[in-house]
């Protein structure tokens, strides 16, 4: 019997060992993952009744602040500019947790980072306000211009400094006033929350579309296809020449791919970009660049990866990474594989099929080209300041990826500048400065061929130096209202924003 009791003892010990292992997994190994889970609101609930730092734009406007109030909750979080910054700051709510910068930088704003806790021995024994103020890279007057320029049309405007990755304007419509969730009037917050939750996803103003929604990039993606051609094949801006034609039929299909509005075009890559020639880029993708290089180049630009931006849960832009098995070879020299889905690859080369990108991602494509091929990590944080006004942390620009050689980047700049000067993006041109652009008119879905999103990506800067601004604008289609094109709908908005930005930077009067 004693032997059996010992075995029972061992069995019970093993049970407890299993518990110990599992506790280690949850409390130590999965700790970070669980703490960052979107439905985890513990830190917000913990921090709600504390002092909390302000969020301030780079030009000194306070866009989020806390006030002491009487009642059940000790503080209210308010956002003086209403909906203007909602998609950057996010909200800070007792009931619904936090989103945006409020969530990403919660520990610093609440003064809960270990480094903020104890500056000196004295802090251990006294209660001090350790919260930090966050200064962000957005410029207030540029943000206002972006909002006014887009108006009451669903869409997004993203302006980035290509040299640093700093985000200078970040607007998407529709937006909302986050004060309602930070208010101590919990019922009002609950009412708004339920109302927003009942809307279809695309109409929910809480959704920051510029970094959490993905769209067909359409022709703006031709920049990526052209980059792949310059980087990985012997093609240049002027070699090879493509047929001038209205349609192109990729291998393995009889279904032809058409140019915009039935027009005919062709010629070299430079001309293809200037007039946004679908047949040229479809053939380039399907028969010259090939799947492997196009996947590789799009991933260098940031596709198929969570962007390293300082905001919670950014969406991953998608480029399909499997086009099936090889079934043959092209006749070109050197030959590239023809895959089962080469027709889809042709579509992907012009930003359709399953290619989807956030407006942020497309701004980064333009920024990479403008920054001579170097992609910087996008960011909103500029610095943190403690309550005595002393800087405690300053953002240092970081390279995300080296995408293009300087040579190839300069070629693409030439093409984009020609597109703005005499191609589809002339509405973007601004006299007296360098402007490059690329338009896009992206089909929304196959069922509604007449509804399209209008896109523009571009950059601008002084004549004699590197570009200081990169931009992406998307104006979303309105069902039944017909085609929106990048050139006529998105470009004027981008131009208005760039003009203001150039004035702020001192390059224009």
């Amino acid at each position, binding site marked *: *019997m004693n032997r059996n009791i010992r075995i029972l003892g061992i069995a*019970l*010990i093993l049970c407890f060992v299993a518990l110990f292992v599992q506790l280690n997994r949850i*409390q130590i190994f999965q700790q970070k*993952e669980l*703490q960052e889970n979107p439905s985890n609101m513990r830190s917000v609930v*913990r921090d709600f009744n504390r002092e909390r730092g302000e969020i301030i734009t780079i030009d000194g406007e306070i866009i989020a602040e806390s006030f002491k109030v009487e009642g059940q909750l000790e503080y209210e979080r308010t956002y003086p500019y209403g909906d203007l910054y909602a998609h950057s700051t996010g909200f800070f709510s007792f009931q619904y947790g936090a989103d945006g910068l409020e969530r990403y930088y919660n520990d610093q704003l609440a003064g809960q980072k270990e480094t903020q806790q104890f500056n000196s021995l004295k802090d251990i024994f006294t209660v001090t306000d350790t919260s930090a103020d966050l200064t962000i890279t957005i410029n207030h007057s540029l943000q206002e211009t972006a909002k006014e320029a887009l108006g009451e049309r669903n869409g997004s405007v993203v302006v980035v400094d290509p040299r640093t990755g700093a985000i200078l304007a970040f607007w998407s419509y529709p937006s909302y006033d986050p004060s309602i969730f930070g208010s101590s009037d919990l019922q009002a917050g609950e009412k708004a929350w339920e109302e927003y939750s009942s809307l279809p996803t695309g109409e929910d103003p809480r959704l920051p579309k510029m970094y959490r929604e993905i769209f067909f990039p359409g022709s703006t993606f031709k920049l990526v296809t052209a980059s792949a051609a310059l980087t990985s094949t012997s093609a240049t801006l002027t070699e090879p020449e493509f047929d001038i034609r209205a349609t192109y039929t990729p291998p393995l299909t009889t279904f032809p791919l058409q140019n915009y509005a039935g027009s005919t075009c062709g010629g070299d890559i430079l001309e293809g970009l200037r007039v946004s020639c679908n047949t040229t880029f479809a053939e380039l993708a399907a028969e010259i660049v090939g799947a492997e290089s196009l996947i590789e180049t799009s991933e260098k630009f940031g596709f198929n990866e969570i962007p390293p931006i300082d905001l919670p849960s950014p969406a991953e832009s998608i480029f399909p990474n499997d086009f099936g098995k090889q079934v043959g070879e092209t006749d070109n020299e050197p030959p590239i594989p023809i895959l089962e889905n080469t027709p889809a690859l042709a579509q992907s080369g012009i930003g359709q099929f399953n290619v989807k990108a956030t407006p942020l991602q497309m701004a980064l494509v333009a920024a990479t080209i403008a920054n001579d091929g170097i992609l910087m990590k996008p960011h909103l944080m500029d610095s943190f300041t403690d309550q005595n006004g002393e800087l405690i942390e300053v953002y240092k620009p970081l390279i995300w990826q080296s995408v293009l050689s300087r040579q190839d980047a300069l070629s693409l700049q030439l093409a984009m500048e020609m597109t703005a000067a005499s191609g589809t993006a002339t509405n973007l041109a601004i006299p007296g400065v360098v402007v490059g652009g690329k338009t896009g008119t992206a089909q929304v879905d196959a069922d509604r061929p007449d509804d399209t999103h209008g896109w523009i990506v571009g950059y601008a800067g002084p004549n004699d130096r590197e570009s200081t601004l990169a931009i992406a604008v998307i104006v979303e289609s309105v069902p039944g209202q017909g085609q929106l094109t990048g050139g006529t709908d998105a470009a004027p908005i981008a131009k208005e924003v760039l003009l203001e930005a150039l004035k702020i930077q001192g390059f224009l009067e």
Partner: protein
Amino acid sequence: MKSRNRNIEFFLLLFVAVLVVAGYVLASLGRSSSIPANIVPFLIGILLLLLLAHLAVRKFAPRADFSLLPLAGLLNGIGYFVIARLDKDLAGLQATWTLIGVVAFVATLVLIPQVRRLEQYRYILMTIGIVFLIMPLIPGFGREINGAKIWVSIGSINFQPGEFAKIVLAIFFSAYIVEKRDVLSTTGVSRFGIAIPELRHLGPILLAWGVSLIVMVAEKDLGSSLLFFTLFVALLWISTGKISYLIMSGALFSGGALLAWSQFSHVQERVDIWLRPFDDPTGDGYQIVQSSFALAEGGFTGTGLGVGTPENIPAVETDFILAAIGEELGLVGTTAVLTLFLLLVGSGLKIALTSTRPFEKLLSAGLTTLLGFQAFIIIAGVVRLLPLTGVTLPFVSYGGSSLLANWVLLALLLRISDEARRDETDENPTRMGAG
């Protein structure tokens, strides 16, 4: 020997009092930055309770093991200061239940001078056990709370008879198995190298299985069902050492569980929540997801007592109290609780090993299994190792029936320990002299 044991126990209990008071003060500091106003009465209360239990053991079971009472006292104390930090009203009730528990502990020691006397009442105890088990199903008596029909209401008092049934049934099982031991151990036909007992001897297993299925299905109490069945199988294993019983019971339980899963939506729901809690983090999975967040928030050292936010876990004072401990005391705290239970299991099984009579051996091992395995299944539910089964964490969770039953269980263990040592010295009178 006997006074040395009691002296060690006394000093351990003083240490327990210091730890519990420290936890209580820290939790209050963490919550309101103030020393609790009732600190002096609290300290005196704890000392009196522990002293009462200690003196009872000194008088009525002087040779008993010295570690059980301090371990139980510490677990009860940890549970108390965590509950006090979570809910002041419940803390008052828990204090009352602790007092009643300790009184019941003393009463058990006084009223049962020899455990073997219980052996002869086995069939009465079996009847009581079954009545306790099915009481919640009797209309007018039974009451469903939080989806489980395990409560009985008499007047304004609610209690869970299942907590007492487990002790009564442990006594019955032990006595029954001792009586039938020879029959149960005879080898029947041998197949595939495994000795299969004759069919008629499987009767008791089938009965235990049937009862546990009824509990699982009719009362929706998965935890108790698993606990009863494990208890029975453990006792059968200890007395016969036959692997075939383990295999057969394992198969029977799996079959029963599978049947219950395929037939009953509440069982399926439990399993779904267990496998995919994050599919519905604000609905069905809320409790287990919040518990995981709490444990993760605690990390290695915890947020500190009174500083976390474990209040938002439903049933945190009862089933999920370990999540609260894990949040505020971290892995250090949860490991400490696991260690305390392991020590309790070790001491309990040591009593079983040193007992000389089969009935006492089985009973002490059975009671220890009840404590250890109940702690295991509820913690396993909290940490997502098993589907959640709502049983209490012995001595730690809030709950009157549970505390009372576990203090009685502890008294029985001490009683058996005392008897075993007494037998030892009776049989080897020279040992004392030699020392």
